[in-house]
């Protein structure tokens, strides 16, 4: 529905346009080489690598626990989830050999769920806020950011950082919850749910916004799977798949994870898997995360003095195991806000990883750009990029 003109009917001269690497809508340093005929895009080729920092190479040069801060930099919008993915992977590696097995304390697992889901909320807030800002509505973005601030305040009290937390460690978490954290989080969630209703009335239910997104860049479920879309982008196309529910890590198997999928939320003009579906799926996931945080808070065991205690402790002692981990390889998939954050870890039995591979959601999302950005309007490029919620350091690593 986005346009009645197809690329094949375009004639005449085409204009080459460089969107980015510095462009307000490319969310960082992404470059799109766009060919347009007037307002209609004939072709758009993404160009990556401006933010490549060879994090995987760095992983081969630092010791196991020293890589955790680098995972923050892979995806700084949801650093807790990035930490968690790596730590879960290393723990799985250690657990492949009974001699080096590590038991993460239950309290630490609960804290991990709490911070990961809170971080998912704040990451999705950036996603939906930035997308509405791309579409010209500035106010919802700031309302979302105001809520993210509160989450950051909680994290700051928790670990002293507001963006790159380095909080989840191998074997647990770096610090126990600070005094009064449960009350703070509960108070935030209560206020936040009311705020989100206002937010949704402001932008999600807005007719202009819905018409801008409805039917734009609809991706069929088969395409979404073939192009390796993950997370909300995959679920937006109606594929019912969530690693937290289907391949649980941590204690997600003890929580009731409900998975919202795209159903053509935009109504009359909408199609399953269009930009609006991806947007709404994120908002529904925010509500689910609120529920999961509440559940995890209920499960949280009382703290005890001994930090390695299997129930009330917050950090298992893994220093010895990490000096001589088992030789071999593991692969772990975790559900980060931008979809699957998977680690392939190869260990040669020494204190540094042999190979650390991080598979991120934004990278594969870019692989479908060229297919989608044909015959759409210039303005829709921005909608598409926004709806995929890409974070450029995650693409380029």
């Amino acid at each position, binding site marked *: 529905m986005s346009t009645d003109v197809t690329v094949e009917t375009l004639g005449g001269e085409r204009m080459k346009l460089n969107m980015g690497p510095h462009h307000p809508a490319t969310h960082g340093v992404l470059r799109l080489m766009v060919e347009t005929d007037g307002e209609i895009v004939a072709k758009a080729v993404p160009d990556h690598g401006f933010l490549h920092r060879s994090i995987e190479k760095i992983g081969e040069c630092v010791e196991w626990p020293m890589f955790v801060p680098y995972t923050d930099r892979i995806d700084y919008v949801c650093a807790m989830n990035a930490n968690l993915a790596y730590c879960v992977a290393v723990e799985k590696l250690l657990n492949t050999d009974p001699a080096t097995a590590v038991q993460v304390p239950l309290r630490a697992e609960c804290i991990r769920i709490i911070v990961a889901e809170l971080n998912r909320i704040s990451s999705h807030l950036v996603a939906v806020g930035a997308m509405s800002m791309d579409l010209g509505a500035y106010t919802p973005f700031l309302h979302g950011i105001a809520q993210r601030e509160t989450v950051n305040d909680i994290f700051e009290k928790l670990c002293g950082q507001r963006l790159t937390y380095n909080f989840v460690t191998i074997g647990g978490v770096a610090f126990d919850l600070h005094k009064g954290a449960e009350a703070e989080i509960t108070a935030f969630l209560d206020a936040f749910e009311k705020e989100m209703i206002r937010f949704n009335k402001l932008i999600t239910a807005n007719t202009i916004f819905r018409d801008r997104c409805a039917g734009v860049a609809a991706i069929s479920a088969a*395409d979404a799977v073939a192009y*390796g879309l993950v997370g909300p982008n995959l679920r937006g196309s109606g594929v019912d798949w969530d690693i937290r529910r289907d391949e649980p890590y941590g204690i997600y198997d003890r929580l009731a994870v409900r998975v919202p999928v795209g159903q053509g939320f935009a109504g009359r003009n909408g199609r399953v898997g269009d930009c609006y579906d991806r947007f709404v799926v994120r908002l529904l996931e925010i509500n689910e995360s609120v529920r999961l945080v509440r559940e995890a808070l209920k499960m949280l065991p009382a703290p005890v003095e001994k930090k390695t205690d299997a129930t009330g402790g917050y950090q298992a002692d893994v220093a010895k195991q990490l000096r001589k981990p088992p030789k071999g390889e593991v692969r772990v998939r975790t559900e980060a806000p931008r979809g699957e954050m998977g680690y*392939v870890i190869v260990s040669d039995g020494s204190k540094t990883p*042999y190979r650390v591979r991080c598979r991120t959601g934004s990278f*594969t999302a870019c692989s479908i750009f060229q297919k989608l950005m044909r015959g759409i309007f210039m303005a829709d490029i921005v909608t598409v990029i926004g709806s995929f919620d890409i974070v450029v350091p995650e693409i380029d690593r």
Partner: protein
Amino acid sequence: MSTALAFAAIAEQVKSAHPSVEARESDNRQPWLLVPAADLPAVARLLRDAPALRFDSLADLTGWDLAKFPATPPSTDIAVAYYLHSLAHRHHLTLKVMAPRDAAQVPSVSGVWAVANYFEREVYDLLGVAFTGHPNLKRIMCPDDWIGHPLRKDYVYPQAYNGIAHLRDGQHFEDAPPRVGDPPPAPAAAAPAKPPVKSA
């Protein structure tokens, strides 16, 4: 009712169609299939299309250099690993292709799983595995004129890129071996008095 298959059953099906495929296990008992490079496209198509297998998604594609890996027997190949996942049946499979490091060539599977296009470009860029039949095999992370493939274990960090030095005066890489084209080593008298400080 779950239609997921265990690794042994999958391996059985694949091996019956392609006897050259071998089931292997890593040192920590993670199972995978070793596929000869020539058979890869056919195996990939079988895995995607066979109704009992239906590996519709390529969850990850990566690789690593085995040159310094303490494997038995030792190998200098580049391992290319394919992590497949079936959303229809909810089962997993790991494939590996061993590419000789001097002529690392593996057939592309971007015609089977569209996402492989990007993954293969990344592996090509960082590990130097050429995927034959890839529609657009160009570097994706590094600049097009970059020399070398950084994730290879014998990779030497370049001192300069297009005439721009990577290190400022006084900085140095610890134990960086001299490269072809580097200025000849300075005489012993000119060597720094202080030993180089190891950076974190």
